[in-house]
């Protein structure tokens, strides 16, 4: 494990090589990227295997000296890190392969791979970070990667705005993280996770400080993971190429928020209020995003809102002290959501549109994509035997056991919505007849099918490493040797699993009835509650609200300051100028040539001086 630091360096190398030599390599760039990511993947898998038998490894050296303070940089391989390493490098590797087909023919093909390398480097670095400062550094770099890739089609105005929005909204969260991190540093004297946890455990940090810093760190996670109220950038981020959406905005970066909360979990666990905040925000986001997802018409946006919703789930799990549940869902979600995105990309690749109203009847035309998409849909809907079922069940149990029943029922409702809108999506794309005429619909090349197939297998299989039936390997292993993280497995009432199954099946049934059998009118919601429909269709007008408040607010402040600048600052300068000019003009007027005036002025000056002397006592 001493060599774990090499893992992020391979993608960095890929970035640098492609940046310098990309123009000459043309499409061969893909191979450089794929090979180097493969190296990362191989090492990650090796690390994970090694971590099963060996204890946590940590290595650090001084990065920055500030007088007496020494800030360190290094890497750490613990259970969570090792798991995340594999998830990240695996998804990244698959996306590298997939992109070769998807991005084929793009003139900035090498740039795309370079950016992918940069992002993968940052993400792997983030995962390996042993302290908050380093986390923050890579946290921002990950944001840079995301920004660059969202804005990859830079000539599109919408892509520009999406990239800008993503960067700024996540930065708002980042500032929260920065403040929280610095406050923690002055409380505990260290950025190191283990030292922070140790002082929290010793009670060296006051209760309010823990709550405050935990919530500030959570704000960082909110920004990155697209939780309410900083979620609006994530759907817009779908302007980026689809493989990017799969890698960054489904599997890895957005999960970084969840990862951050998981990595600092002992801090959160020390404050009930902080946990409460996390779970409430999580649950609210889950149901909130799911409700928007119901009415969206863009295939990628539906998936984006489902991502937001699922991330809310994970937050709910962590907030309910379900560390294992959260991380477990993070993993399964990474696989099935990446699968869904890649499959959606494959659909888009085939039909060249993202509007699901224009699709339909693709089941027969896309022989491989369609079943894979179905697997993903089943997994995310929580249909038994698929991975999503197990992880979602864990979350529900954790929420129930933790005690807040309202949150539990919220989560169940969200699960229903999820099943409904995912199958609405599936049926509208693949079932029935084509709603518009599609030419040249063809299955994607093998380089795109292969990654999907791998992910499809994982979307089914990954659930089985932590089940109430066959044993909770993952959970037990994750919390091994660290009591602060809670138990590996939480026992809950058996009916929860049945309720979850029923809920997801009824959601699927409802979708079936509306979109396939058409026994319920599709326009049901539009006709019955046009207001609700419009609110949902417009995403609760949150974007508009932000536009009205923050954007205009900032503009207003700026204009106000410009007012100050022109009238106060420049005015001050003008006043001085006018004063000096007046003085000069008066002076030249006094130079009238009349001796008497000169004398008068000289005399008045003398008088003033004398009075001053008399008053200050300097006279006599």
């Amino acid at each position, binding site marked *: 494990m001493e060599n774990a630091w090499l893992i992020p360096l391979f993608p960095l190398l890929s970035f640098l090589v492609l940046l310098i030599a990309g123009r000459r390599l043309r499409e061969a760039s893909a191979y450089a990227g794929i090979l180097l990511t493969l190296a990362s993947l191989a090492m990650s898998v090796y690390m994970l295997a090694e971590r099963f038998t060996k204890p946590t490894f940590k290595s650090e050296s001084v990065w920055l000296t500030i007088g007496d303070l020494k800030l360190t940089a290094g890497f750490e391989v613990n259970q969570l890190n090792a798991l995340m390493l594999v998830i990240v490098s695996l998804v990244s590797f698959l996306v590298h392969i997939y992109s070769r087909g998807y991005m084929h023919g793009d003139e900035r093909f090498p740039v795309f791979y370079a950016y992918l390398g940069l992002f993968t480097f940052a993400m792997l670095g983030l995962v390996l970070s042993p302290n908050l400062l380093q986390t923050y550094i890579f946290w921002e770099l990950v944001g840079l990667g995301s920004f660059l890739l969202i804005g990859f089609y830079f000539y599109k105005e919408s892509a520009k705005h999406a990239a800008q929005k993503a960067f700024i909204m996540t930065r708002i969260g980042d500032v929260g993280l920065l403040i929280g991190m610095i406050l923690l540093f002055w409380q505990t004297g260290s950025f190191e996770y283990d030292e922070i946890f140790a002082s929290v455990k010793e009670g060296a940090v006051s209760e309010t400080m823990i709550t405050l810093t935990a919530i500030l760190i959570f704000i960082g996670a909110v920004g990155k993971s697209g939780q309410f109220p900083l979620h609006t950038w994530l759907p817009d981020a779908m302007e980026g190429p689809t493989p990017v959406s799969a890698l960054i905005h489904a599997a890895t970066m957005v999960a970084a928020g969840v990862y951050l909360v998981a990595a600092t979990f002992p801090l959160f666990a020390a404050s009930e209020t902080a946990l409460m905040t996390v779970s409430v925000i999580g649950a609210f986001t889950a149901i909130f995003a799911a409700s928007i997802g119901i009415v969206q018409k863009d295939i990628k946006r539906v998936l984006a809102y489902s991502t937001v919703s699922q991330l809310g789930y994970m937050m709910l799990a962590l907030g309910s002290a379900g560390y294992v549940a959260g991380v477990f869902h993070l993993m399964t979600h990474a696989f099935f959501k990446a699968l869904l995105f890649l499959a959606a990309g494959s659909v888009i690749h085939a039909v060249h549109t993202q509007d699901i109203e224009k699709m339909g009847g693709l089941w027969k035309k896309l022989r491989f994509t369609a079943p894979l998409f179905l697997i993903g849909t089943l997994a995310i809907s929580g249909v038994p035997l698929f991975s999503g079922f197990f992880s979602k069940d864990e979350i529900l149990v954790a929420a129930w056991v933790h005690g807040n029943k309202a949150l539990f029922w919220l989560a169940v409702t969200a699960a229903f919505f999820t099943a409904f809108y995912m199958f609405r999506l599936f049926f509208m794309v693949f079932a029935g007849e084509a709603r518009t005429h599609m030419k040249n619909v063809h299955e994607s090349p093998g380089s795109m099918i292969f990654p999907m197939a791998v992910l499809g297998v994982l979307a089914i299989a990954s659930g089985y490493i932590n089940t109430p039936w066959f044993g909770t390997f993952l959970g037990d292993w994750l919390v091994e040797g660290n009591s602060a993280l809670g138990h590996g497995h939480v026992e809950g009432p058996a009916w929860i699993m049945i309720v979850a199954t029923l809920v997801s099946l009824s959601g699927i049934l409802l979708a079936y009835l509306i979109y396939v059998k058409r026994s319920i009118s599709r326009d049901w919601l539009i006709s019955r509650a046009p207001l609700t429909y419009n609110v949902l269709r417009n995403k609760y007008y949150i974007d508009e609200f932000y536009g009205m408040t923050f954007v205009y607010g900032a503009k207003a402040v700026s204009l106000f300051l410009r007012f100050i600048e022109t009238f106060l600052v420049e005015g001050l300068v003008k006043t001085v100028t006018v004063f000096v000019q007046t003085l000069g003009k008066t002076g030249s007027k006094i*130079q*009238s*040539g*009349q*001796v*008497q005036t*000169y*004398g*008068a002025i000289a*005399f008045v000056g003398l008088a003033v001086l004398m009075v001053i002397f008399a008053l200050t006592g300097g006279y006599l």
Partner: protein
Amino acid sequence: MSNVPVSAFLALALILFCIGLYGALSKRNTVIVLISIELMLNAVNINLVTFSKYGPAPSINGQIFALFAIAIAAAEAAIGLAILIALYNNRKTVNIDEMDQLKH
């Protein structure tokens, strides 16, 4: 004997000096300005004579100074008037406002 205090003489001199000063600096007629200057010289003479009697070291010197001052004042008045008349011949005015050659 000295039941008139020194400061009374000095104050009188001061008042006359101030009047003369004001006149010299504010009047427009050149003749009056010259006369005001004479008044100021007179005020100074009062001072000299006062100190010659009541000063820290009384002596005749103060009166001598005053005498010289009067002599010079007379000369100054004569010259001043001569200049005034020369100017008047050139510019046909005695108004001091219009004498602004210094400006040019």
